[in-house]
């Protein structure tokens, strides 16, 4: 626009900023409440004293250290399982012809749409038959055969030029070393994208963990947070905010540092 002041554009800019403020407000507000005494929870006084007491009480009221450990183990275990199993399966789909391939692939697509999240009733029965109720493995196991991971890696492997594979074979590489030396390194961006999406998904997942866990030694952060934040717990809002910030901070900080990778990973993955 050549005309000096474009009021329409200014108005739009103001609206964009207002919306950004509204979207950031809940988290900023939680931070305000967490770092100030309870008296200032809805009094916005810039001279209010800062305090870490809420974090101390939150840490004391709930076994956060244990919840962190549980979530950390859950996320690592699930991701490791997913990466290994999906790599192998994706390789089969991308580079082999075998009877039943089409049917197998349709079955993979079924799981992309109907994730284990909605099958809590039957999966609870299965997990209890396996004796895995209230174990961290029990939380992660249903997600390890991830159709979504297979789908993404298959796409990535298919884009690897055949010539590279042929060259490796001429040098005497077998199928498995071709997978490890040619396909896996070239699919690195896909691994990163899938890893970030998987970690954020399982860090945040709640429904299945709440169904399958019932003790402090297995509960991930989200489940611990739901008990801690319940009105029955009698904890005040400042302490709840502090606990909530504690629980989200690792992922939130990682996101703020590696924002581009996060956004691109979610974009690339298409489906959360």
């Amino acid at each position, binding site marked *: 626009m050549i005309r000096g002041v474009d009021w329409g554009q200014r108005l739009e800019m103001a609206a964009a900023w207002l919306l950004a403020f509204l979207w950031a407000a809940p*988290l900023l507000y939680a931070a305000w409440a967490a770092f100030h005494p309870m008296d200032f929870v809805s009094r916005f006084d810039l001279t209010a004293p800062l305090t870490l007491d809420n974090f101390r009480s939150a840490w004391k009221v709930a076994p956060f250290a244990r919840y962190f450990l549980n979530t950390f183990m859950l996320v690592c275990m699930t991701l490791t399982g997913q990466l290994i199993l999906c790599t192998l399966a994706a390789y089969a789909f991308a580079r082999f012809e075998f009877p*039943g391939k089409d049917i197998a692939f349709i079955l993979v*697509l*079924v799981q992309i749409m109907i994730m284990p999240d909605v099958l*809590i009733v039957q999966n609870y029965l299965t997990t209890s038959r396996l004796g895995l109720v209230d174990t961290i493995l029990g939380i992660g196991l249903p997600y390890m*055969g991830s159709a979504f991971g297979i789908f993404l890696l298959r796409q990535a492997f298919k884009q690897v030029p055949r010539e590279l594979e042929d060259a490796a074979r001429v040098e005497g590489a077998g199928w498995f070393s071709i997978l490890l030396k040619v396909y896996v390194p070239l699919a690195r961006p896909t691994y990163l994208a899938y890893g970030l999406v998987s970690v954020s998904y399982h860090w945040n997942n*709640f429904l299945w963990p709440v169904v399958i866990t019932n003790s402090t030694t297995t509960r991930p952060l989200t489940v611990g947070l739901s008990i801690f934040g319940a009105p029955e717990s009698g904890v005040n809002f400042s302490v709840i905010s502090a606990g909530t910030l504690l629980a989200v901070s690792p992922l939130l900080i990682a996101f703020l540092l590696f924002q581009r990778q996060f956004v691109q990973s979610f*974009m690339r993955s*298409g489906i959360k």
Partner: protein
Amino acid sequence: MYLNSKTARWVYAWLLLLPAAVLMVAFTHFPIVGGFFLSFFSTARQGRPSKFVGLDNYTYMLNDPVFWQVLGNNFLYALGTIPVSVCLALLMAVWVNGRLAGRAIVRTSYFTPTILPMIAVANIWLFFYTPQIGLLDKIRSLFGLASHSWLGDPGTALACLMVLAIWKDAGFFMIFYLAALQGISPELEEAAVIEGAGRWYFFRRVTLPLLMPTTLFVVVNATINSFKLVDHIFILTKGGPDNATSLLLYYIYEVAFSFWDTAYASTLTVVLLVILGGLAVTQFAYIEKRVHYQ
């Protein structure tokens, strides 16, 4: 290891596939089939083993007022959240894609709710909605309005959940629009400017149609989400008051793990799967298209 014979390659491929396939079948396909099967049986209770009851569970479901209420809630919830969050997502994407001062900060702000756990944000929002001491009532009291039990009133409780869901999802959907917008050739806009087309006209006649596949993708995903994500109910309302905020999956959870009626929960799951299956068909049509054009 050289695998030259055809059979050896088949075996090798199936061995690669096997570990993932076993887990997928065990936790996805078997539960789908098993749940369908179980919906024709009664739940085993003390002293009474499970027995075949035909369509009894389905008859019970059709006469269960809570089922109808929950289903109605879920459609209302989908209808109330999806159009708003998709429109906001588009608006956000257009703004963030344009020349906006402080673009990076605005984009971060829009996207951040996406990576936070629903449970955590529900904890924060619970306080907003708390009567009297909550932030919403504090703001209202500035204008002399009376306090209101937002989550305790069946008339406003579901709307409270919807607002939270919109806030949580809009930024996630934004990134898909952003990707699509960045794929639109700038020459189109240049040409339109030369032709004298206004910004709004260009958006309506060129941008919007080009974004149609993205919109379809986003809408289907938003619909799936509205049937799949019920975490916030656990914190905010537990389905109450009087089931006014219970959604289908939350009701399934209650029936299965509070009332321990596995057979009826399986019957309800069949309904949920039929809904998700219908959405899946729409989605696959789209994925296929995308794969072909790549």
